[in-house]
Structure formats: structure tokens, C-alpha cells
């Protein structure tokens, strides 16, 4: 039995997935497919489901998106494909993520092995970082015949798939399966190696024909007033700790305060509730009408029983007692709590990596640097900071490298 923390939402059965697929209008020039950042082509795979070709549906997803089973679970579909869905003209959009999850589960259940390694072209690429961007870059390059080495500073691969997104939304097992597909294609993952520290960029460049920096925004931001406070933990540290322990952590607090109003804050607050923390209060800088978190995440968090207070900023902290003031109203509140979690954003660290970022991303479009051997991708490149965009950027940087090294020819 999985715990409340681990438990994923139920998925479709063959009957119910057909019912959902039957709602699809099989649009001409389908808007959902145009709205998928990674080109997963939902209209195409839903049509395959509709015509009872589940294996073909799995091929479409996998060939277009090496993180297909992950995107099925974590994509903010309401911003992308489902936002565009024509069915909205009748009632509500097709549950594209749900259908994608059913198909990729089927793919795994049937032990399908869809991706094929390209004939070797003798070239080798180093990828720094094994988040979704690095993984997709690897998958695309391997299919084109490149050899790929991935360098990861952590003990396990996956970046925020592994250490950020909570188990109940993205089971570890799914992350393993997706990474194994890429390892089976031929990716070599080297763990516990921090590039720029343990190994230099110069070394990587000497051994490879190109280097792709895909380090994401893997460090938590701290607010000065909380520095060194023993009651304080950052959101990503907390989420990683809980995920690694599969929810089985020591000293579950009786109450917790979360500071921050993005999707990460929602994940932290919901995780705390799933761990049976009695009082979880989330204080958010933005007011509800300017909220950063997606509507879906916000609703789920409120449903989980989290108290969300909007418009407040922390002004003072004394040990486990924090004072907040409203941004516009004359209002102040003081909360004493067992655990303070800061979800105020993540930051990029590209020290010694030959890539310059500002405000979390490289300040020019595309994936090239001044050094013709060095490319970058993922969250540090311009565009949305989501998994599906990481996939898109991974596909695109792989094409750019292929163009640069081989002019796109095999």
C-alpha cells in the first residue's frame, strides 16, 4: 500500500479512456497539437487511441517526447494543449494529460522499446546536468548517432523530476523508467561529478566534440533575514528530503509556515498536508488576482486543507516566530510555528561553466555561446520554465548541434 504522500491520482481504464477519447472532435489542423511546446502531437495520439491503435499512440508520444510519461503527469496542460482545445466550445477540454498517461502506462506494460539508436557518426557530446533538458538532448542526439556522456553532480539523475516534483504527482518509478529508456539507448551517466569543480569545462571540451550546459536553476534562493535560522528550510531541500525518504521523515512538525506563492510553494504546502501536518499556512506576496501558481495547483492546495493568506510579506523573524505585514492594508500578523519553509524561487549557478546568465537565464535567444563548442539548454535558456519546455529546448539544441557539427547531414 502506498502512503498518502505517495498515492497518485487514479488513471483511466480501457473503457474510460475510450470514453474520453470519444469526446475528442478529431479536429482539422488540430489546435492542441499546435499548442504543445514539445510537439508531442496530442491530436495524433488521441486519434490512434480512438481507432484502437494504442501501440501507434505510444510511438507518437515517445518519438516526439522522450519524457512522455512524465509530461503526462506534470504538464500544466491548462496553459498549453488543453487551453487550445476546441472541445471547450462545447463543455470542457479533452483530458489530454490523462490520455497520455494511459498510453505511456500501456507502453511500459507492453514493454515496448520504441526509440532506436542511430548509426554511429563517431562524434561525442558531453551534457552537464541530467534534468529533463539534458535527458531529452541526449535522447535526440543518440537517435542521430552521437555518443553521449551525461555529467550529474547528484547521486541520481533527473534534476527536479527526481528531487523536486513530489511523489504523488510524479512517482520515482516513472522517472526511473524514463531515464532507463535513455540509458538503454546508449547514454552514459556519470554521477557525483560537478562540472566546474571536479572536472573542468576545458577537460570536457578536450574529450568531446561539443558540450551542452543543462544545469537548470538547481539552487534555492534564501532571504537574508532567514539566513542561519535553524527553523528554516528551503522548498527544494525539503521536497528532496521528503521524496528521497518516500514521505517517511522524522520529526513531522505540528505546524508549518510556507513563504511563497508559486507552484513550488503549492507543492510544499500540499506535501505537508499529505504528511499529516495539522496546520499549514502559506503566506503569499501576491494577492489572489495576481497569483503565480496555476489555478489547478492552487485549487488542489486549498482542497488539501492549506490556509493561504494572500498579500503578506515577512518583515521580521525571531527564531520560530515570524511577523508578516500586508503589502497595502494596515495589517500585521505574527505566527509561531515549528517549521518555516521558504519557497521564494530557485537560482542558477553557472560558475566556471562558460555560460553567462542574468535573472536566471542567458540573455540571448537560441542555444549557442561565444565558444563554438559550448551550447546550453533547459531552464537557463529563454522560454517557459517547465518540463515540456525543457523537452522542446532539448530537441532544439540537439538539432542546433547537429547543424553545427554535421550541417544536419548524417
Amino acid at each position, binding site marked *: 500500500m502506498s502512503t498518502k504522500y505517495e498515492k497518485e491520482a487514479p488513471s483511466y*481504464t*480501457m*473503457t474510460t479512456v475510450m470514453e474520453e477519447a*470519444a469526446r475528442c472532435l*478529431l479536429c482539422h489542423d488540430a489546435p492542441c497539437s499546435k499548442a504543445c511546446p514539445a510537439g508531442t502531437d496530442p491530436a495524433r495520439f488521441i*486519434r*490512434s487511441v480512438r*481507432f*484502437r*491503435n494504442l*501501440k*501507434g499512440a505510444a*510511438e507518437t508520444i515517445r*518519438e516526439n517526447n522522450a519524457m512522455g510519461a512524465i509530461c503526462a503527469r506534470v504538464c500544466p496542460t491548462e496553459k498549453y494543449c488543453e487551453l487550445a482545445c476546441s472541445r471547450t466550445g462545447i463543455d470542457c477540454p479533452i483530458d489530454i494529460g490523462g490520455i497520455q498517461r494511459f498510453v505511456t502506462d500501456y507502453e511500459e506494460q507492453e514493454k515496448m522499446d*520504441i526509440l532506436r539508436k542511430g548509426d554511429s557518426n563517431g562524434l561525442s557530446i558531453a551534457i552537464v546536468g541530467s534534468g529533463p533538458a539534458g535527458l531529452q538532448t541526449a535522447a535526440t542526439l543518440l537517435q542521430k548517432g552521437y555518443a553521449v556522456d551525461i555529467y550529474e553532480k547528484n547521486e541520481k539523475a533527473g534534476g527536479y523530476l527526481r528531487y523536486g516534483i513530489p511523489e504523488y504527482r510524479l512517482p520515482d518509478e516513472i522517472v526511473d523508467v524514463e531515464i532507463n529508456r535513455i540509458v538503454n539507448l546508449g547514454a552514459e551517466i556519470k554521477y557525483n561529478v560537478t562540472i566546474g569543480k571536479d572536472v573542468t569545462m576545458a577537460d570536457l571540451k578536450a574529450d568531446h566534440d561539443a558540450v551542452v550546459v543543462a544545469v537548470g536553476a538547481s539552487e534555492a534562493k534564501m532571504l537574508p533575514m532567514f539566513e542561519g535560522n535553524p527553523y528554516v528550510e528551503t522548498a527544494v531541500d525539503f521536497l528532496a528530503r521528503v521524496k528521497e525518504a518516500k514521505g517517511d521523515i522524522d520529526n513531522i512538525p505540528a505546524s508549518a509556515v510556507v513563504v511563497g506563492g508559486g507552484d513550488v510553494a503549492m507543492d510544499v504546502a500540499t506535501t505537508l498536508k499529505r504528511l499529516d501536518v495539522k496546520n499549514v499556512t502559506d503566506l503569499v506576496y501576491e494577492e489572489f488576482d495576481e497569483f503565480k501558481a496555476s489555478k489547478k495547483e492552487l485549487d488542489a492546495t486549498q482542497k488539501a486543507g492549506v490556509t493561504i493568506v494572500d498579500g503578506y510579506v515577512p518583515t521580521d523573524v525571531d527564531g520560530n516566530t515570524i511577523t508578516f505585514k500586508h503589502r497595502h492594508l494596515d495589517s500585521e500578523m505574527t505566527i509561531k510555528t515549528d517549521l518555516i519553509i521558504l519557497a521564494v524561487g530557485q537560482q542558477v549557478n553557472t560558475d566556471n561553466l562558460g555560460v553567462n546568465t542574468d535573472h536566471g537565464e542567458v540573455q540571448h535567444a537560441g542555444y549557442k555561446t561565444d565558444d563554438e563548442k559550448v551550447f546550453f539548454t533547459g531552464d537557463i535558456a529563454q522560454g517557459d520554465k517547465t518540463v515540456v519546455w525543457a523537452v522542446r529546448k532539448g530537441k532544439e539544441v540537439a538539432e542546433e548541434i547537429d547543424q553545427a557539427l554535421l550541417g544536419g547531414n548524417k
Partner: protein
Amino acid sequence: MISKDLSVEFLGVHFENPFLLSSSPVDNCYEMCAKAFDEGWGGVVFKTIGPKHFKINEVSPRFDELTKEGTPFVGFKNMEQIAEHSLEENLHDLRHLKDDYPNKVVIASIMGTNEEDWETLAQLVTEAGADMIEMNLSCPQMTSHEMGSDVGTNPELVKKYCAAVKRGSDLPMMAKMTPNITDMVPAAKASMAGGAVGIATINTVKSVANIDLDRKVGLPIVNGKSSISGFSGKAVKPIALRFLQQLRTAAGLEQLPISGIGGIETWQDAAEFILMGATTLQVTTSVMQYGYRIVEDMKNGLMHYMEDQHVEHLSELIGVANKNIVPAEDLDRDYKVYPKIDWDKCIGCGRCYISCFDGAHQAITWDIKTRRPSIDTSKCVGCHLCNLVCPVGAITTGEVVMKPGTKGNPEDVQIESSRLTHPVQ
């Protein structure tokens, strides 16, 4: 993406895959056929070409559909006859299709009113470069009784017209049969005697699909009236498969080459037709509903099926199921199999209870408190109606028992079935 050889040989002609547009509005002109070829169809049976003297004048509107609950197009009714384009246009299109798509198969469907028509049309389409001829002996809504299914149900006429076509052309020729007949075998044999080398079937089934309740007229309404006319689509698939079986098991027709038609929409339908003896497959209604693109999933799904079956060529699957469909008197009637209910899967809807009481043998008892059904084996006849109505697949096949007075070992009985033993859920 899987890639497998789907090619078949049919009446001496090579098809890159067995999927053909059947003769109908889906392949009315060059542009349509070209788009279909580009999207992956293996061939077309061009919209039936008639003699110059027979003027086509169609009604408007001309279609109706049968629905059930939320599902449209369970079946489809049409009141259309043969090609509206002129003979010259059609011949021109055939010629250009063959020029531009030499590897695709272009079959000319023709229909005459007398021997001379048939012979002339055969000659003309042969000159235009068609690879094969299909004789339309089966349209049920022609405005002349010299044409269509009135001819196809008359073996003498069938033979005579087939012979006329043979005089006009050396191309391989198949006769398209009507299902509006009790036994198709005499007409099929007559066509072979006249020179046909294969059979295409089925054409549409004569029907009145719906009645407009306020106006008291069948649908579609043509200025206040309607007619009996052809029915097609998913609902006719069982009728088509039955005719395939009867043809392929008739003495002397065991190896009959068949182009299977009727309700094909998915790779599973296609596989069923192949297992029942079809070498090529023709499609209209599902293309009218969804477009040429459906061929992508039919081809891809069929390739996966071949892979799962460890088959390299479709020819290995043709007619494999024919031997397993036997006369009713030859079935084993010595045993029954009880249903088995999985109470963990059961959601307590009671549909099995209602159906068993009202439509079977009152063999399910219903616990009002727990909302769970149980089987009373003293009453259960093992019909498995309950299994079919359960919405969550909680009912499967259970214990096999021999009937009193019969010998035999229940363990030797083969009850495995994709429907009942592994209900979809």
C-alpha cells in the same frame, strides 16, 4: 515507428498495402484519389462508371445515420447512385492517376444496363490504364431495374454480364456482390463461370434507417418522401463477415480471393476481415466520417498485430479463422461455464442483476445491504449476459461443468476469450 511489409498479391496484381477506398464518393475524382494515395492508401476502386446513355440525377439531401446513445454513425444510409461526373472526365482521371501513381492500384468500377454497355465500359477503362475491373452488380438504389442489386441477385444475368466484360477486357476482374440475398454463393459462382476471378463484398444493405416522427416520412426527406436504400458502416460489419465465411466455406470456393468491405474503420476490423478470408480491404463510410487519415492507424495497427502474431506476410493470416466457424449443430453442447464475479472490482451498480433477471435466468441474487451480486449456480445457464453488461469487467468466465449424462473433462474445454475471459475494463 514500426515498419513492416503489408503488401499483398490479389488477382495477380501487387498492392503495397491491402487498404483500398471502395467505390463511392470518397474516390470520385483525380484530386481525391491523389490525396488518398499521398496519405497512404494502397489503391482505389474508382467511383462506379456507368454508360453514357444512363443519366445520373441525384437527390438532395442523400444521407442519414443511425445513432445509439452518444455514438453517431453506428450505421449510415445513402441514396446515391453511380458517378455523377461524365464518362470522359472519369476516364481522363483514371489515366492520370495511373500516370502519376504507377505503384498504386487503380481499379475501375463499372456498371451497364445490357451486355453491350458492360463490354464497352470494360474496353474503355482498360484503354484508360486501369489495373483491374470491379463489376458493380450490387447498388440497391438504382433508378433502373436493369442495374445494381436487381441484377446481382439473378445468377443468369450475372454470368452473362461477366462474360460481356471478359469480351471487352483481359484485365483481372472481380464481381461486387450484394448482401440483399439469402445465399451469395450461386451469384458468386455464376460470376466466376462468367469470367470473374475474385469477389468484392459487401455492397450496402437495403434499409429504412429512421422515420421522422412529426412528418411520418423516412429519413432523409426528399421533398416530403424517402426511399429504401443502402446501409453501411460499423453496423453492417457482422453481415459482411458472415458472407465472407459462407463464401469461403462453400464447396469449390475455399480459396476464393475476396476484397472485403463493410464497416471497416480500425486495424482490428481489418484483421478480422483478413482472418475471414479477405486479401484486400475496402472502406467508405468511416472515410466519409473521418477522412483518409484513418488509414495511418489501420496500417500501423496491423503492423503491430503482425509483429505480435510473429507473421511476416499478411498472406499467412488470410482465412485462418474460417475453419473455426462451424455449423451450429457441430458446436460442443456438453458443458456450461459459470460466470465468476470479482467483488473487489464490482462497484455495486446492479446492472448484471437486472439483465440476468429481465433477460436471462434469474440466477443472480442481490444483497441489498452490501450491494453485491452472487451467482446461483442452480439457475445459471452460463449465457454470460451478465459479463457483457458489467461496466467494469468484474465478471469473467469461471468454473466449467459438464452437463449431466455427458462424458468429458472440464479442463479440456477451451473457454479463453478476449471478450469474456479478459473483459475490457
